[in-house]
């Protein structure tokens, strides 16, 4: 008899740690007060599957493509419409859960601003066209007889993986090109490079649940990290008795910081110095002393607690407190994150932070090697800011004749000193493949309307693979909503079949391409099923799973040359504030600003909705006589932005912050003309070692404009609430939960 297995982490635990939950909105019948006759239609199925019962939901497995975690999801489908997404319990990554950003992907599908027909350029504007007309324009540049080859063609995407990546590379091959540029404005390349150099793997497994103490330097693993849903379940287990302790060190409190037991505000960019301060104190203990080479110990001496306190702005005694916990609680796990890595010394910061894992003996315990993917061609392409520089350089040479763009919006996310928009003019054929027009697509010559992710086939491999390798299968959850939208794969195959009929004419469509690819992988899974059974079971489970394989790190070499310097950098008198834009777990780099559920989900730290705001520490605000709602001009040497002030104690006093994601000019009704875009005032500073944009190294000044506007927020008892305490909250440790429920 089957016994019901109790889930290790229940829904409550999961939701407790997840910031953007339940973005679901309910719309009641509007003005419909009585029964109607003959007004609405009720269409029957013509020939449905036998298991389809109107009114009852059918669940199909698929993959969330909203971020690079690629969680396995289940779509609840009723009467041929996908209504709700849930996590797929078969998925190692999602374990049956899903985040708010994933939930909201249903609004990509039903967005009223979706592009429903191709558009082609007619002078200054784009005009609707048929597919035949669009393909004709494309064929003029890229058709059968096109001489374009090598670097004359660019395929610009986000960090794609799976067969999406394989097909793009096949496509480029037909032009003798390898010019696939993968760009992510918020990439993790700095940390990945450090880990690659130190451990040999860019994304080793970080075992949150096995640690007793986590020290995280700006790693928002519960919000916008590498795999927030997976990490949230791990974190819920980490918090079960005996409860693990989380220490977060960052200039601006992230969602993860909000969950921490101790939160230390640090001067932006000095995280590595603090890490070395800890390392120096740590090796005073005989046990840790043994493992550290003399040369390193000598180098660490420069990081005594007073010097470190001076540089980082953290009370020198904090080092003693943290180290005492490190000595006491084992195993530990140290994480570096975006705000520690986005600096001129970003690589050194991340290196110093990873060094703590080595000294603490976490390597092999809470930091373990990932399983090798038997299908390396499906691994995600390394996406970075460097790619934008590469693109910029290529466009400067004016050699590029055709460019295809999918999944990225460089004109919006590119900083103002990289003037991609003007250089677009140098390319005669620019093709954007989108579900909705955005700032970049608007500048293209042909814009093709794609299927939404819930209408599309695909395979995906997330960059962070915590338990073995998960190949996630994406399948349509419903028929396409708009008849003139097409699969990205079908568009490429049409072109490929012309250029390379020998290899591609056998595929009637993208579906058959994906199906054959999945079926071909059968031997790796040692399956005795027939091809049809294997394909059906892959679709039904939604994932193919390669079990974890024991591996060991090859010898780890410590390098004192990569340590951040213990120097005190004075603040610029003209630009006296550090600018640390925040990465919201939902809007991310602005790609999701077109989804109204996310716009109206209150920011987990400030509860502000539908707008941008400037976070400023209450003490600093008092000194400058700034009140909430004052419109501030935030000015860097690259430009300025205006937004309302929000007094926020969770920020280092010399730092101000504006969230990424808003400030669109051309991304549909929910995103346009809302808030400001912090990418545009980022200074041209890059990480010295990797060349990645130092997103958190900009310095700014604040100018009061004298204007004021109400901040729209959803906050608790700190506000007046019309003179009454309408919503009273209580700190969790003061509540007696057994009495509350």
């Amino acid at each position: 008899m089957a016994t019901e297995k109790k889930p290790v982490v229940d829904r409550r635990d999961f939701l407790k740690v997840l910031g953007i939950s339940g973005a679901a909105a309910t719309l009641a019948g509007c003005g419909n007060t009585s029964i109607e006759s003959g007004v609405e239609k009720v269409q029957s199925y013509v020939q449905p599957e036998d298991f389809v019962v109107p009114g009852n939901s059918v669940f199909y497995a698929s993959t969330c493509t909203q971020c690079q975690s690629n969680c396995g999801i289940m779509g609840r489908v009723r009467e041929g419409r996908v209504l709700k997404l849930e996590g797929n319990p078969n998925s190692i990554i999602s374990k049956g859960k899903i985040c708010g950003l994933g939930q909201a992907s249903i609004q990509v599908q039903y967005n009223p601003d979706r592009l429903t027909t191709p558009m082609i350029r007619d002078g200054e504007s784009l005009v609707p066209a048929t597919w035949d007309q669009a393909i004709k324009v494309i064929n003029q540049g890229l058709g059968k007889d096109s001489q374009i080859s090598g670097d004359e063609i660019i395929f610009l995407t986000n960090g794609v993986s799976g067969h999406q990546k394989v097909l793009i590379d096949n496509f480029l091959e037909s032009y003798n090109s390898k010019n696939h540029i993968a760009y992510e404005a918020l990439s993790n390349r700095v940390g990945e490079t450090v880990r690659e150099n130190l451990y040999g793997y860019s994304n080793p497994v970080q075992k949150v649940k096995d640690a007793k103490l986590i020290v995280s330097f700006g790693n928002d693993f519960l919000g916008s990290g590498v795999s927030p849903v997976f990490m949230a379940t791990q974190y819920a287990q980490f918090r079960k008795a005996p409860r693990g302790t989380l220490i977060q060190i960052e200039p601006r409190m992230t969602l993860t910081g909000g969950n921490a037991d101790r939160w230390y505000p640090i001067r932006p960019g000095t995280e590595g110095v603090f890490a070395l301060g800890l390392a120096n104190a740590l090796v005073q203990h005989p046990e840790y002393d043994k493992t550290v080479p003399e040369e390193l110990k000598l180098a660490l001496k420069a990081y005594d607690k007073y010097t470190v306190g001076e540089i980082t702005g953290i009370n020198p005694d904090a080092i003693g407190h943290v180290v005492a916990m490190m000595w006491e609680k084992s195993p530990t796990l140290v994480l570096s994150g975006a705000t520690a890595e986005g600096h001129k010394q970003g690589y050194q910061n991340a290196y110093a932070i990873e060094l703590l894992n080595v000294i603490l003996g976490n390597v092999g315990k809470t930091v373990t090697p990932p399983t090798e993917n038997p299908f390396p061609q499906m691994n995600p392409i390394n996406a970075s800011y460097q790619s934008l520089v590469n693109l910029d350089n290529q466009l400067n040479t004016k050699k590029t004749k055709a460019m295809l763009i999918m999944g990225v919006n460089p004109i919006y996310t590119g900083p103002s000193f990289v003037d991609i928009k003007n250089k677009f003019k140098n390319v005669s054929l620019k093709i954007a493949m989108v579900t909705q027009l955005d700032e970049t697509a608007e500048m293209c010559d042909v814009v093709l309307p794609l299927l939404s992710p819930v209408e599309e086939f695909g395979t995906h491999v997330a960059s962070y693979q915590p338990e073995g390798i998960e190949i996630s299968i994406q399948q349509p959850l419903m028929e396409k909503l708009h008849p003139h939208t097409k699969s990205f794969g079908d568009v490429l195959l049409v072109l490929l079949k012309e250029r390379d009929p020998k290899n591609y004419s056998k595929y009637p469509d993208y579906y058959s391409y994906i199906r054959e690819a999945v079926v071909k992988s059968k031997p790796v899974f040692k399956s005795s099923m027939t091809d049809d059974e294997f394909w059906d079971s892959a679709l039904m489970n939604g994932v193919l799973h390669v079990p974890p394989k024991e591996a060991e790190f090859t010898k780890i070499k410590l390098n004192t040359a990569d340590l951040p310097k213990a120097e005190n950098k004075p603040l610029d008198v003209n630009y006296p504030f550090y600018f640390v834009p925040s990465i919201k777990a939902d809007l991310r780099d602005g790609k999701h600003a077109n989804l109204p559920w996310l716009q109206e989900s209150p920011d987990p730290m400030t509860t502000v909705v539908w707008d941008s705001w400037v976070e400023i520490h209450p003490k600093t605000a008092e000194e400058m006589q700034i009140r909430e709602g004052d419109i501030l001009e935030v000015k860097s040497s690259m430009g300025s932005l205006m937004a309302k002030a929000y007094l926020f104690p969770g920020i280092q006093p010399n730092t101000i912050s504006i969230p990424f994601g808003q400030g669109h000019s051309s991304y549909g009704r929910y995103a346009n003309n809302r808030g400001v875009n912090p990418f545009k005032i980022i200074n041209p500073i890059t990480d010295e070692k990797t060349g990645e944009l130092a997103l958190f190294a900009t310095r700014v000044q604040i100018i009061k404009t004298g204007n004021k506007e109400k901040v729209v927020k959803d906050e608790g008892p700190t506000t007046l609430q019309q003179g009454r305490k309408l919503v009273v909250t209580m700190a969790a440790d003061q509540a007696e939960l057994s009495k509350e429920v």
Partner: protein
Amino acid sequence: MALVGASYSINAEPFKAGGAPGTQTIDGYNALGPQVEQPIEFPHYTHANVMKINCMYCHTYARRSAVSGIPRLDKCIGCHKMIPEVRDRPRIKKLFWYWDNHKSIPWKKVHDLPDFVRFNHERHIQRFYFQDKRPVREVCGYCHGDVANMTTARRVKAISMGWCIDCHKKDHQISAVNLKTTNGPNDCWMCHK
């Protein structure tokens, strides 16, 4: 049952109008809905009355789902392929036009509850038809009237909240063999959820 040469005229089905819209019915409610023009004038009378087909043969989802659903088109075709005698009738021609073109028939809803009301067919059918063993025409008729005597269905019952509650207040025998009685739930959120 003889399907061939049945001696009825398809135009002669009786329709009991029941009064002008808004008139009072015996149960005290304004009841009658408007005539609804349908893409095919479906003769319920022929199917349910003359042919004595169980309502649930076509509305098969009523016992399994909150909604009774409109029968799938291949169900209509499944039978009508075997009845060549009526193949040339205008309504059957229309039916086959939809089938041949793989199009679903755009029926108009006759009993369309507001979105904030959740009525569950399955619960009612399971209770009164399967448990109480009452005749199917009677059970469906509680809400839909005597559809078997109509051509296209028309609303003849009030189906307002008070009307629903009236019935939920009544004592209903638990099953055909158990003489104990119960009444329907009267929690708000049974229907408004």
